[in-house]
């Protein structure tokens, strides 16, 4: 694999909330490689959005990075204080597609004007006519018919899927090196989801952009990702190629996530769901954050946080089950079936 384009080391991020401190990212380390499609999965509140917002300095003002570094282009961007620094990153280096296309466009400006704004900010030196041509070709490339006419319309005249195409066009008009897609299909109709994912996947590979998908939908992940990071309670608990995560998962949380996929459930049986609630990040977590919900938890999980165990050079998981001294455990039935490829993810 190529050199990392972005590399996060031991990142700790906290939020001040009404006098309390929320430890949102707990010692996260992650490498993003040039040209890959990385998916970050995890349940709501696991910190996946917060992590990617750190790359662009978009976290709310009450959040602060306590320690750690994010190296991009040889610079530690956690040191950025001024808006001027961030403006070098935002859009031009890293762009974003957000979750809800219904609200992520300015309702009072034409779609064309909003794309033009991005072009004028990031493709300097274009004449007015050139910028307009670029805008129209952008609209056409995201699959919007009659770009000339549509560019003069306002967001409310577009359907949800069409608006998400516009949002994608805005992101690509910035000519980014990394594209962060924050749950790009969650708010869309199921029939549209596949189209939008395919569009993003095609455009990303055409322009050689590194993509980071944030999602809690493993179906999305199976479609687009070459590598998967599983997040739980502000940390990456398992990371590997999508092959490794889907067919050889090692962390009990990943097992639980996969077991709760509807397409893997057995007809007539109750769908698996993970018991309990996520760890309270307002208090300091002791041991493994997943231990209280983990039926396979060992005694040591309650006391000591597991380190990263390397399974292959690309596959790592944070669970004591991988320690040589740990008892040998069989993963749940569904996971074994998955490993033997007896069930199909696309169900």
């Amino acid at each position: 694999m190529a050199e990392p384009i972005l590399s996060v080391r031991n990142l700790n991020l906290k939020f001040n909330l009404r006098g309390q401190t929320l430890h949102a990212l707990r010692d996260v380390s992650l490498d993003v490689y040039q040209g890959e499609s990385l998916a970050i999965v995890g349940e709501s509140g696991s910190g996946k959005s917060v992590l990617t917002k750190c790359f662009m300095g978009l976290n709310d003002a009450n959040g602060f990075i306590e320690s750690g570094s994010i190296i991009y282009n040889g610079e530690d961007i956690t040191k950025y204080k001024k808006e001027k620094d961030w403006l070098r990153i935002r859009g031009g280096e890293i762009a974003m597609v957000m979750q809800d296309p219904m609200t992520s466009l300015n309702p009072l400006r034409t779609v064309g004007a909003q794309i033009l704004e991005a072009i004028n900010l990031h493709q300097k030196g274009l004449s007015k006519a050139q910028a307009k041509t670029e805008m129209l070709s952008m609209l056409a490339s995201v699959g919007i018919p009659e770009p000339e006419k549509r560019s003069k319309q306002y967001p409310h005249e577009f359907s949800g899927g069409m608006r998400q195409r516009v949002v994608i066009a805005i992101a690509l008009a910035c000519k980014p090196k990394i594209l962060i897609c924050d749950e790009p299909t969650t708010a869309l109709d199921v029939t549209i989801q596949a189209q939008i994912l395919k569009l993003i996947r095609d455009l990303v590979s055409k322009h050689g952009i590194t993509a980071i998908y944030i999602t809690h939908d493993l179906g999305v992940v199976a479609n687009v990702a070459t590598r998967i990071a599983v997040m739980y309670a502000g940390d990456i608990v398992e990371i590997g190629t999508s092959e490794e995560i889907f067919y050889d998962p090692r962390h009990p949380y990943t097992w639980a996530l996969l077991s709760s996929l509807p397409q893997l459930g057995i007809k007539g049986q109750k769908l698996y769901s993970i018991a309990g609630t996520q760890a309270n990040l307002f208090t300091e977590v002791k041991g493994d954050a997943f231990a209280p919900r983990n039926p396979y938890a060992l005694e040591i999980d309650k006391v000591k946080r597991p380190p990263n165990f390397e399974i292959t050079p690309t596959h790592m998981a944070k669970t004591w089950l991988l320690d040589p001294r740990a008892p040998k455990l069989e993963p749940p039935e569904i996971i074994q079936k998955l490993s033997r490829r007896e069930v199909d993810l696309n169900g």
Partner: protein
Amino acid sequence: MIVLDVLKWIFVDHLILTLVILLLVGFVFLIIRKHLVKYSLKRLAGSLLTLFIIIAVVFLLLRNMPEEGFIENYDKLSKQQREDQLRALGLMDPIHKQFFNFLKQLFVNGSLGASTKYQAGGDVIKIIGDKAPISIILGVISMALSLVMGLPLGAAMARSKGKFWDKFGTAFIVFINAVPSAVYYIFIQLYGTKWMGIDLLFEKSNWITWILPVFSMSLGSAASYAMWLRRYMLDEINKDYIRLARAKGVPGRSLMFSHVFRNAFVPMIQYIPASLLYTVAGSLYIESLYSIPGMGGLLVKAIGLQDNPLVQALVMIYSCIGIVGLLMGDLLMAVIDPRINFVKKDGVR
């Protein structure tokens, strides 16, 4: 030379008229360009109907006032003389005939009747026409000033929420709303005139005496503009499209102006035509403090004197202004906000 004369006629002698016509032409142009003609005509028809109903109601109510309001020197006349006068004025006719006559007078002669007490026999429209301009000019200037003060304050408050400018602005707004305006009006007059070394009273030809009344008048609306703009801007700042704009690299300053301020101003723009037109009514208290010969208090005086034709004319004019203001506000919104669609039913935003 003829060109000069025409220019003088347009820009010097009839400045207000020219401005009003220019504004209306611009308005009509925008309405046609945005394909809002049908919507506008519908709204206009609705407003005309409302106006007619209001005129009818005001007319009927004033017909039920004691009859001394319609006759000069009522006390000195005998019963027969009074009846003769009432008959001569057409007030003994059946009510529908009176109303029809009133409308005929209004539309054919452009007359709203003659004053009976305030300026016995004087044409009501002339009485109002003499007093309105100074109130309008003062009102328009003070409104412009309040926008100039209120909008930047509101924007600064929204930008620095919880910090110095926000606290300063909140203190200002609370002060203006909590302290009765009469109190700070007097303070401004007393200390302002002393500090600037000018006369207590207003003088039309001396511009320096315009400053304090205009300033006093603008404080109240400046506070409310600041309050509403802050609120609307904070609403906008937390919306997703602002986050997306930030993520695509729009710098803070242009983000605030071209996205947040622009969108926050739209809900406020609806009320501007109405408040502009209401300046005709003048400010009762400020006009009496500085003895400005304006409209302020004319209605109160007319009611006190029981000058029924004058009261009737004033009430009708104020209702007209209110309705026209609301209509223009709605149309302005429709021109500016693309989401208002003439195909849909009214009121959908």
